[in-house]
Each structure stands twice: as structure tokens, then as C-alpha cells.
């Protein structure tokens, strides 16, 4: 079982490289059970979306 600390790192790395299948699964499983990490993942997606909107506005 991965810790939140490991998972937050993998959530970020997952935005920059394709994680190996086993890691992707471990992250998914953790996120299913952990609201704090789900919020962290949502924050990271929010950030990406926000930055990509910068040029067009």
C-alpha cells in the first residue's frame, strides 16, 4: 500500500511521463480510498487547465 507522500509524487509525475501499469493501478486504488489525495489530484488538474488557458484570454 502506497503512502499519501508517495502518491502525491506519482500524481505529479503522471502528468509528465507515462507511469508503469503497476504504479498507475496503485495510484488509482489509493485515490479511491483517500479523499485528501483525490483533492490533491484535482488541484493538479486545475493547475494544468488554468495555465493552458492563459494565452487565449
Amino acid at each position, binding site marked *: 500500500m502506497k503512502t499519501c507522500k508517495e502518491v502525491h509524487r506519482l500524481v505529479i509525475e503522471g502528468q*509528465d511521463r507515462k507511469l508503469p501499469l503497476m504504479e498507475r493501478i496503485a495510484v488509482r486504488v489509493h485515490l479511491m480510498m483517500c479523499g485528501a489525495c483525490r483533492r490533491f489530484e484535482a488541484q493538479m488538474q486545475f493547475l494544468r487547465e488554468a495555465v493552458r488557458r492563459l494565452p487565449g484570454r
Partner: protein
Amino acid sequence: MTEAEFQAELNRLRPTLMRFAVLQLRDEQSAEDAVQDTLLAALEGRERFSGRSQLKTWVVSILRNKIVDRIRQRSREAPLPEVSDNEAEDFDGLFEPDGHWADKPADWGDPAKSFEQGRFFEVLELCMKALPENLSRVFLMREVLEMETEEICKELAMSSSNCWVVLYRARMRLRECLQLKWFAQGVGSE
């Protein structure tokens, strides 16, 4: 659209282009040059603009390329100092020794609510400008110029692991900054 109308349209886009270029290049003069090149290229390439896409989208895509060219050139002339791997550890304080969150991430709510407010993007730009140059350059290549991480590492002659560390730090700092300067002000979520 007549030639004159086309030019007028381009001129109207100039402030937007400038702001975008300054953010990425962090220097008025090179931003000015990049925008100038872009407007020139747009005028010369007018036939290639089909009118199918928005003019702004088309011109911004030209500007992206001009910015990438300049970043490439800069990286050849003045490589950025490596970020040491252990510097990535300064976010350790967010976690308990057992790996649980010490400081649980807040709910940022519906992103669309923030995006509707112009002020949000001002805060975001502020946060991006506050990043150290070596973090910001890699982050912008990744997120604004939408380059693949591999490509960026190669371009900047960095190891892949160093690239990931830099991107990690940039994202964590921006998160921290948005939390502090936007969400903690109670403007984002509710």
C-alpha cells in the same frame, strides 16, 4: 477581410501577445522581438490563414514557435544550473513521518468558477513570475508550449530525472502560491 482590416486585427492582439511573451521570456526586449517576428510572419503568411480557426489561435500558435526558438537559443548560450535532487525534499513538511498528509489539501471547488474571474489569472501570473527562472522555464515549456517532457530534457540538456524534479517543484510551488493568494482569500471556492 481586407489587408487593412487584417492589420488592425493583428494590432488589437498585440497587448495579449506581449503579456504572453513577457511571462515566458521574462524580458521585455526579447518579448517585443518575438511579438514583432510573429506579427511579421502573420502578415506574410496571410494566405495560409484560412479563416477557419480564430485569428487569435493562429497567431498565438506562431508566437509559441517564436518563443520556443528563443528559449532554445538561450539554453544553448546560457544553460541553467542543475537543480539538485535533494532540494526536492523541502515539501517534506507537508507530510507526517508515516507518509500521511500533515496539511491536507483543500478543496479548490469548481475550476470554472475561478476561471470566470479575471482576477484569478492575475494571481496565477503573479505566482508564475515568482518561480525561480530555472523552474519556470521548464514548467512553461511543458504546460504552455505543451512540449513532451523528453523533448524538453533533450533541448535543455538535462537528465530525465532532473526534469521531473524541476517540474515537481514548479507544480508544488504554484499550488502553494494559489492556495495562499487565491483560495485562502475565500474567493475560489464557494
